[in-house]
């Protein structure tokens, strides 16, 4: 495997006709780190990935991989490899030949390329399926093959376009840890596009939240969760309440919101009515409507909730520790 490389975007812009898909984004991804581009559909995350891969022209700005500007290099010359959302396995080739495809293009003899493909299939535990064709495999198996094929080019940067979105939830969690394991084993840079904040949190060293072609925030998962920069980020990663307090826009984690007993109601910051109670197993989500008309969500531990159960429609007082409130800047 080749050495990990940094990936750097300098004011990278993508226009489709008049439409601006990616708006002058700048970003530096450390070599060997796992970076997730996170955002709703149409936010420009896939276009960004495809520009790094070389499957889309850069309208403006520069893409650097390692020390080189790669704007005009074809995909194979960049040292990147891409894993496609639909896996894009060649239906007319066996699993082994799919994995060995890049070697075949380089003119490597059949025996040698199949040998090397077999070793790669071992890494993704697909050795037994080498002679099958892709349509005989399940979604999860196809994905392993796609991963093996991408790694076969010995990339220094692996690009993954929504790799887990086609899998069922159970498999998604398993493949997630597998991806993380393979990344740390190979030590190369991974850039992973996803619209699932859960996936980004679980995998990434660096989460880049995108919105409308711009980077809303790029930071470590913990920082994103505890200190979202804008209301958009707070809303998108979920588990946050956004409210106006003393002239500021603040965000509060749902688990930082506490519901007070009647006795202490006088010291509460807000009064609210319970609009919804949702039991979720490890915790309980309580939907609240304040007198001012804000909708808030509190999440309480399962045991805490049932120590003093609440009922829908009852009036309660809510409060939070001052240090739990985090001030947001405006969107954009």
């Amino acid at each position, binding site marked *: 495997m080749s050495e990990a490389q940094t990936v750097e975007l300098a004011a990278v812009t993508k226009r489709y006709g008049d439409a601006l898909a990616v708006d002058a984004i700048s970003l530096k991804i450390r070599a060997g780190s796992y970076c997730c581009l996170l955002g709703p559909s149409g936010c420009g995350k896939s276009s960004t990935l495809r520009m790094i*891969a070389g*499957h889309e022209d850069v309208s403006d700005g520069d893409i650097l991989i390692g020390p080189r500007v790669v704007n005009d290099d*074809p*995909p*194979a010359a960049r040292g*990147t*490899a*891409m894993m*496609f*959302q*639909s896996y*894009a*396995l*060649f*239906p*007319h080739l066996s699993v082994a030949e799919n994995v060995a*495809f*890049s070697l*075949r*293009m*380089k003119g490597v003899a059949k025996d040698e390329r199949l040998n090397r493909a077999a070793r790669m299939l071992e890494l993704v535990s697909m050795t037994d399926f080498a002679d099958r064709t892709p*349509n005989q495999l399940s979604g999860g198996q196809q994905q392993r093959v796609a991963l093996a*094929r*991408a790694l*076969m*080019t010995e990339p220094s940067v692996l690009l993954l376009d929504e790799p887990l979105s086609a899998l069922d939830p159970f498999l998604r969690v398993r493949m997630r840890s597998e991806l993380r394991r393979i990344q740390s084993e190979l030590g190369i840079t991974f850039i992973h596009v996803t619209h699932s904040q859960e996936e980004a949190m679980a995998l990434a060293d660096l989460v880049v939240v995108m919105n409308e072609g711009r980077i809303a925030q790029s930071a470590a998962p913990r920082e994103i969760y505890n200190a979202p920069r804008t209301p958009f980020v707070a809303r998108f990663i979920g588990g946050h309440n956004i409210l106006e307090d003393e002239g500021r826009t603040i965000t509060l984690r749902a688990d930082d919101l506490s519901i007070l007993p009647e006795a202490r109601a006088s010291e509460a910051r807000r009064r609210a009515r319970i609009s919804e109670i949702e039991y979720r197993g490890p915790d309980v989500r309580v939907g609240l409507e304040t007198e001012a008309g804000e909708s808030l969500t509190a999440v309480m531990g399962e045991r805490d909730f049932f120590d003093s159960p609440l009922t829908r429609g009852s009036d309660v007082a809510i409060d939070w520790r001052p240090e739990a409130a985090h001030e947001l800047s405006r969107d954009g």
Partner: protein
Amino acid sequence: MTDATDTAAEVRPARTSARRSGTGRAGAALAPYLQAAPMALVFLIFFVLPLAATIVVSFWQYTQYSIEPALTAQNYGDVFYGCLANLPSLCTTFLTYLSTLKFCLIVWATTLTIGFTIAYFLAFHVRTLKVQVICFLLCTIPFWTSIVIRMISWIPLLGRNGLVNQTLISMGVIDTPLEGLLYSDFAVILALTHLYTLFMVVPIFNSLMRVDRSLIEAARDAGASGAQILRHVIVPLARPGILIGSIFVVTVVMGDFLTIGIMGGQQIASVGKVIQTQMQFLQFPLAAANAVILLAAVLAGVWALLKLVDIRKEL
């Protein structure tokens, strides 16, 4: 392949709902046969019966003025008369088949090359469906007129004093008119290619449209050059279309007598031409025997082509 599973999924609920409704089992079981009946009847009356008649008549006897029911292999013997005895020099029948086969191979190669190129352009370079439809209509223009008019239209173009010769002379490329443009092998191949390229374009286009575009990106990602993508990804995936187009072209050209007759100036032999001549002389049993042999030859060719690809699986 995904199409197949989709339709299977759609068919199942349809069947259960038919069972639930009050139509009754017998009626529901009969319905598909009734639906297929009209086409089956047409097929039976206009294809199976004449074919059976041809096979039967090929074993009959004939004289200059009559044909009589009999069971004789005489006609088949006549077709190959002297073919084995005179080897290695080839008899007329073998020479005719060889000539027809030659046209077949050349026209197959030209229609495939041109047809694949057009289909590739339509599938990968034309972005909108509207433009694709317009381009397709353009391709069908040769079919807007009758075959005879189309044949005759070549004469002012390719004739001794035709447009091509005059243009070349006025440009100073040649001094005397080219003789081989009309009534030659070249003219036959040109006309056949012009006629049947569309038969290649349609099935190949259909195959190419199903090629997942991300496969091409994946190949590029793996370092494949344009030529390598064509050879290792696009052509293999277009194989069913290429095959279906090839079957069309091969069967049509093997049986052609009109184009070869007109464009060859009635000087070039073809199996179809032989059959037509024999029919003009009322030698129906002999013509029938020739037709059966041609049919067998074409079927053998199609069978060989089908060996190359599993059509059922690919469709």
